[in-house]
């Protein structure tokens, strides 16, 4: 099964693992993105995420479907937090259970790479001191010029 969610609440690794647990699974592969306290030497004091909720969920479902076409996986969970995310807390978790580990590990890598490229969610970094806040852009984002 696929479990996708976008929530303003704190993300729990255990809850996400529970969503994908299966006695058939030999492997659980996971990626947790956490907010960092620095960017190119500037001290980040907080991060805010904004999502185009409906479309973001749809794009996350699309990623789950592509994963299932490419690898043999059992369950996929993909959750993203929105709003204020304090330093050190998780902004995104992708977890995949599979019978064999190569499938799961590759699926997770593809999942986070693709999420950063296609899912309409935005991050604003707020810096310490006089520095202006900045809306970031993922280098993975390959939006074609319109």
């Amino acid at each position: 099964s696929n479990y996708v969610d976008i929530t303003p609440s704190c993300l729990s690794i255990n809850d996400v693992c529970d969503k994908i647990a299966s006695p058939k699974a030999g492997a659980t592969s996971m990626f947790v993105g956490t907010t960092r306290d620095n960017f190119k030497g500037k001290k980040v004091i907080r991060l805010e995420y904004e999502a185009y909720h409906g479309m973001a969920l749809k794009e996350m479902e699309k990623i789950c479907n592509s994963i299932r076409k490419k690898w043999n996986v059992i369950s996929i969970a993909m959750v993203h937090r929105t709003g204020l995310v304090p330093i050190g807390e998780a902004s995104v978790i992708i977890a995949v259970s599979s019978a064999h580990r190569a499938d799961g590990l590759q699926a997770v890598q593809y999942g986070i790479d693709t999420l950063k490229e296609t899912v309409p969610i935005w991050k604003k970094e707020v810096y310490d001191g006089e520095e202006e806040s900045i809306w970031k852009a993922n280098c993975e984002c390959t939006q074609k010029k319109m």
Partner: protein
Amino acid sequence: MKIRVLFFAKSRELAGQQQREFNDVPAKITGAELLSVICDQVPGLSKLRDSLVLAVNQEYVDKDTQLHLTETSEIAVIPPISGG
């Protein structure tokens, strides 16, 4: 035709609003033409023009996509994404 457009993140801040209506937009229009219509009417958005894309009914559209808009089309301005 009257359409409604959603703005997110930096485009929302530059537009000064989360959504806005546009009048007299042709129903048949390409992605690039629609983006020009929007940017021409929203002060401040034009400087972001080259990095924006559009979604119609929650699907990305290309510059050459031939759109068939209706008054219920959900149109969104998507600045460079930064999730993860």
